[in-house]
């Protein structure tokens, strides 16, 4: 799992690359936790290069969302396509979060 971040206006875009499963999600959670501690509380997760996600990955995303909410932050998603989109739909995550077509649009919206 690789994470690349970029600041756009007041938001931080986190582009996720690779696989988010029970093996990789602890690292993901640590990295995002650090971002939040550093004051980045408007986060856009760009899933365009995410190849795979399991329920352990969804769990990590949910705990990130709860953490952000506790800090009065905002979470949004962009580029959810293909099988990642199917997993979001089947799990009910698709209707739980704000999802945008592009990361820049998402960043503008939540800034």
């Amino acid at each position, binding site marked *: 799992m690789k994470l690349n971040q970029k600041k756009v206006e007041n938001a931080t875009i986190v582009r996720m690359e690779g696989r988010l499963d*029970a093996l990789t999600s602890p690292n993901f959670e640590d990295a995002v936790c650090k971002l939040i501690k550093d004051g980045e509380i408007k986060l856009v997760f760009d899933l365009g290069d995410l190849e*795979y996600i*399991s329920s352990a990955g*969804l769990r990590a995303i*949910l705990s990130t969302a709860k953490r952000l909410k506790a800090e009065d932050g905002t979470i949004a998603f962009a580029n959810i396509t293909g*099988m990642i989109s*199917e997993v979001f739909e*089947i799990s009910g995550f698709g*209707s*739980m979060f704000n999802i945008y077509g592009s990361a820049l649009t998402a960043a503008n919206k939540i800034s």
Partner: protein
Amino acid sequence: MGNNRQIQTSEDKTSSFSLRADLAELKVLAENIEKFGELNEIPGKALFEVNLVLDELFTNLVSYGCFSDSHNFDIMLLIEDGVMFIEIKDDGKPFNPLETPEPEIQCDCDERKIGGLGIHFMRKMMDDIEYSWNNGKNRLKLTKNI
């Protein structure tokens, strides 16, 4: 330019492998499924679903089903006439996934829990599921139409 593709043999139509009860084995699982998919020209969507369901079952075993560190998770894949048969045997705690309740998925972020989602994926993504317990092992037979 020669065509390097191997002629498919009946050996390609089955694959058996065993995973140790360690989450690092998720990589081995993904590699084996990918290889099997390539040899048998299985579409990416079906392959993703098979990988996901086996990942969820394996992760369940590693997280909740172990008595000790030395459990094995044995997987057998077989494809025949566009149908994939998957058999999983493990020597962890007895666990019948068909007895788990459906998770609540229509609620907002605050109330949302993740438990049961892996089994929910299995029910949605597989066409048939049979569970049995014998000789001290959980045995699950899954069928997936490709």
